[in-house]
């Protein structure tokens, strides 16, 4: 038998667990594929929106608005990222390994959230900036360049919205535990039920997708829902906190 250094584990349990969760996400090919796919979709749609913008059919040539418009679709990538982060535990019985290494379930669950945020935020920044750069290139001289303050708020808001959406999705998937039903349910909500309710009901303004609209769709904030960007952000954060808590309770209570 080889011997292990008799030292106690280094670092706090939470730090170690979060680091392990980051390693897990990074060593999953699906994570990189999803991130690359989101960037690609963002770029292609930025071309489409910018082309439409040049023809004046969106009524504006603001490089910021057009460059952020693909977020409405690329959020699908972050929904998938969040779902895979949660459901990948249930492939190959990995969750058994995870829980024999980190048996404190709430701690494990929270370190998963931290790891997902650490991966989702830089990915979101790249995807958002990618869309903006492509839109600017296509618009060329027609681009109306925003003041830096607006630009920073726009990019930061969009990236925060995408990362929060990933965390919300991973919480839902933690409860559902299976990839296809979780992805199907979330996509149908975010892309079909959500937008349809948005146009037809008042309470939709408080739902996580519509409340988050103001975080990235600045010129449309008034049109979609009655909340200001700040209040909307507050509602999205509240939904995410609620979802993480429900998922933690469910993960703790159920047999793995």
């Amino acid at each position, binding site marked *: 038998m080889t011997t292990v250094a008799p030292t106690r584990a280094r670092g706090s349990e939470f730090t170690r667990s979060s680091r392990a969760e980051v390693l897990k996400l990074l060593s999953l090919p699906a994570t990189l594929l999803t991130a690359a796919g989101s960037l690609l979709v963002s770029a292609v749609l930025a071309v489409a929106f910018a082309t439409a913008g040049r023809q004046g059919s969106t009524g504006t040539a603001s490089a910021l608005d057009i460059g952020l418009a693909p977020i409405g679709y690329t959020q699908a990538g972050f929904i998938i990222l969040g779902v895979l982060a949660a459901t990948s535990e249930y492939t190959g019985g990995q969750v058994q390994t995870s829980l024999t290494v*980190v048996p404190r379930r709430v701690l494990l669950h929270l370190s998963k959230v931290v790891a997902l945020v650490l991966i989702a935020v830089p990915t979101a920044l790249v995807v958002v900036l990618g869309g903006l750069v492509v839109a600017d290139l296509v618009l060329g001289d027609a681009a109306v360049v925003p003041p830096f303050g607006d630009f920073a708020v726009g990019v930061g808001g969009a990236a925060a919205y995408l990362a929060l959406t990933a965390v919300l999705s991973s919480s839902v998937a933690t409860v559902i535990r299976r990839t296809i039903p979780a992805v199907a349910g979330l996509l149908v909500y975010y892309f079909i039920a959500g937008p349809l309710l948005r146009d037809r009901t008042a309470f939709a303004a408080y739902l996580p997708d519509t409340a988050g609209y103001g975080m990235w769709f600045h010129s449309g904030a008034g049109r979609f829902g009655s909340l200001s960007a700040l209040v909307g952000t507050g509602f999205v954060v509240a939904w995410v906190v609620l979802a993480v808590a429900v998922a933690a309770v469910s993960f703790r209570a159920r047999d793995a």
Partner: protein
Amino acid sequence: MLTIDRLTKRRGSALILSDVTFQARPGRVTGFLGPNGAGKSSTLRILLGLDRPTSGTALVDGVPFERLPDPLRTVGAVLDGSGAHRARTGRAHLSWVAAAAGIPRRRVDEVLAEVDLTGAARKRVGSYSLGMGRRLGLAAALLGDPAALVLDEPVNGLDPEGIRWMRRFLRERAEAGHTVLLSSHLMGELAEVVDDVVIINGGRVVEQGTLAEVTGAHRTLEDAFFALTTGARGDAR
């Protein structure tokens, strides 16, 4: 020391475990035997904090698994399958396990060599054979050089050479003073390895003691097993 005390588990109206009590002691290999569906895996999963008991306790050195300060250095466990995501490489799997337990990276190469997976370390787990997957699970269990090993059906999927290797390995662990608890439905493979035997059937412990005590008047452990399990449930095998 692993202590299972009056464990009962219900799932809906089904009674999975009923009043299961036994111990696995240091320096001995304890065989937890029973037919498929007898409750072996459920007991081990409760011991490892994966499933919740309806009543009763399962303790590791007097502490519930979830409260162990350093679980991977206390108990190494291999349940069914590899315990690894099929899209990851074997090395990536062991790396995150080591990171979560605060175990140095060099230990990953050591355990890979120990279970003879060094050559396949960079291949995806999905491409492994059943036996390779089992050995990867064992490698993860050995990362922390734990004082106790808990193995669910350890010889499943192993070739004859692998089974021989496993038997020798388990004996060495016990002789070094470690606790070994293994479950199996294969009697012949195990008679030579175990010191103590616990036989479970239909969620109840029907017999326990040293190998000699349980074998008793029967010719082999296998004969004793069939006499006990078919008698208790009354269904012919």
